[in-house]
């Protein structure tokens, strides 16, 4: 799953960097375009903008804020979509109730912060609650209809209808905001110059601490998952299961247990993401389908069943949404769908997906 660039690495037993080199050799123009784009973005971020450029492109402060918001939103999307893609990759189950798990996690986290007053502890609560729901779903329902993709998906659809209605019943339709804890509240200065005052003094970007912390946390989670998948026994089992779960089961591994673990983990991640979403924005009725769609688009763009793909897709979609809000107000949401359509047309398996 995680061989990012097709199966070159796996087939030839070559290292990861080798696969990257091979990819660049095969797509010199694509690599050049990507390199230029990266350099251009780095220049946009770190260099002070020339006079005329700001008139044409808008204020640098706005651009940098949109960029940072996009990256941190991408981190949130990654947390939601990675569970979705993991469940899909291993069990071929399109979990349409994933958005409901996100929302449920957010509400449970909200209740936990209200009761205990601890923001960090609420992550544990949300993870456990959603993991239990996920385990129950896998254990009581999906285990009984293995190999029936469509029926499983329809069941998750029915569950999502029920869950969202029940959550409206309990928590009502009003948006709920989870308070940022005091130690993360407020902005933090960053070493990025957004403007130069007439006195020649540089103005640095101040960015909300909590967003940066959550971005770092998402990166840490992503790296930890990569290590867990590639360096541990259970990770090896998951990767083997993604490739051929029947073979894994024949070899005597307890595939059902693995399914339950993965479902619990994916659901738990979605629940934790719910708290992140509740802190960033708010959680309310309708956010479940919003985040379900976001994970769908992220996973389609990045490649189905691929965790690096989910990271790349989340980054692209987060950025396109936030930059879209600034530069194409009326079509911000449509922009990310447009990206999806282009990716589907050119590379149906997703950017980092395998056929």
């Amino acid at each position: 799953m995680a061989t990012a660039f097709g199966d070159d690495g796996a087939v030839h037993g070559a290292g990861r960097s080798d696969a990257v080199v091979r990819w660049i050799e095969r797509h010199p123009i694509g690599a050049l375009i990507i390199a230029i784009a990266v350099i251009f973005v780095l220049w946009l971020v770190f260099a002070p903008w020339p006079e005329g450029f700001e008139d044409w492109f808008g204020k640098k402060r706005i651009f940098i804020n949109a960029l940072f918001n996009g990256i941190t939103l991408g981190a949130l999307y990654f947390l939601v979509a990675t569970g979705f893609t993991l469940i899909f990759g291993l069990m071929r189950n399109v979990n349409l109730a994933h958005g409901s798990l996100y929302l449920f996690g957010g509400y449970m986290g909200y209740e936990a912060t209200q009761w205990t007053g601890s923001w960090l502890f609420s992550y544990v609560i949300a993870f456990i609650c959603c993991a239990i729901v996920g385990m129950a779903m896998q254990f009581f329902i999906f285990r009984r209809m293995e190999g029936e993709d469509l029926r499983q998906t329809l069941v998750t659809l029915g569950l999502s209808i029920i869950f969202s209605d029940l959550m409206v019943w309990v928590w009502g339709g009003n948006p709920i905001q989870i308070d940022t804890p005091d130690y993360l509240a407020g902005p933090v200065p960053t070493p990025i110059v957004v403007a130069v005052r007439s006195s020649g003094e540089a103005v640095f970007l101040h960015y909300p601490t909590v967003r940066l912390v959550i971005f770092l946390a998402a990166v840490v989670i992503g790296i930890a998952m990569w290590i867990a998948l590639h360096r541990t026994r259970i990770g090896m089992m998951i990767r083997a299961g993604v490739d051929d779960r029947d073979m894994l089961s024949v070899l005597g591994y307890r595939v059902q247990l693995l399914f339950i673990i993965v479902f619990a983990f994916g659901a738990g991640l979605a629940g934790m993401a719910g708290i992140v979403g509740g802190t960033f924005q708010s959680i309310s009725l309708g956010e479940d389908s919003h985040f379900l769609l976001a994970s769908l688009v992220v996973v389609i763009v990045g490649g189905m069943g691929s965790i690096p793909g989910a990271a790349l897709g989340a980054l692209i979609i987060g950025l396109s949404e936030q930059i879209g809000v600034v530069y194409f107000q009326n079509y911000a949401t449509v922009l990310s769908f447009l990206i999806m359509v282009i990716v589907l047309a050119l590379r149906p398996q997703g950017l980092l997906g395998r056929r």
Partner: protein
Amino acid sequence: MAITQATDAPIGMDEAQRNAAAWLSNYSAILLLGLVLLFLPAIANNFFLDQIVGWALILGMIALSLMFLAGYGGMVSLAQMTVAGIAGYMIAVFGASSLPAISLFWPWWVAVPIAILIAGAFGTLAGALSARTEGIYTIMITLALASAFFYLALQNWPIFNGFNGFTTIPAPHFLGVNWRSPVPFYYLVLFFAVLSYFVVLYVSRAPFGLALQGVRDNPRRMEAIGYNVTAHRIAAYAFAALIAAIGGILLVWQNNQISPFSVGVDVVINLLVIAVVGGLSHPIGPFIGAIIYVILRTFALDALVAVGLDGRRFQTLIGLGFLVIVLFSPDGVIGIWRHWSSRIRARGARSGF
């Protein structure tokens, strides 16, 4: 399944005739239903005619297009409601509405073909995008496309009039008849619903439909025989889009309005619920699902309140019903019907001995 080349066609026709004879004897219930539907205006009041049966027939048509793709093509497309919605929007844009700034007020015989053409083009394009991937991916891609259109309609004011959408979209007057008055509209809807039903039934037994079912069952083998799998899939999407577009136009005439919330994610999903609850194995399924849905939608709220429950838990009821069907009768109401009728037949055979 008999996937035959053109030379074997006569055998297929014999089979079709035999099937038709067997169908008539087996499904006398459907014949009776047809008679009831034909003479319904004589016994039913306008509310029942328009808001129950008429609405169910229109929803059934749109769900039929989903059933055609899912049942015969194995492609569960959630974009069919969107195709219908685009046709409805185009009728409002090219025809008449309360918004002279956007509507072009072209006559209906120009607006209707254009609307069907545009909606059909969208449906075909959606098919072309999702037909390149397989199986369960289709649901994800078409759901994403459907919500893309929802957001586009919500955010675009110059064409789709954003949040508000269009109101006062008149059905045509021609041959001296106001086709929006309840009885003519009922017959208009009934005509297209029955037509689409029989066309789908016919196509499912025509060489194209059989090839499509072959593609559903084993695309690789069909490819090896020499069929163009992707072309068959896209053609199926185009055909289904035609039905959905006609349904969408009728729906917008019936509701007299269209807004982004007519094509929202919940509506798209409800359409899938309708098709699955009815059953995906026979074209009558979507219509059964639609009538159940419409009756629930119209009366469940009052019924829930009457038994002392919260009427707002309507969605939970729909979800639970859907879940029960999916868990216990994967073939929907048709599956239950077949199960029962075979049991009754078996009992009859036993008592006969």
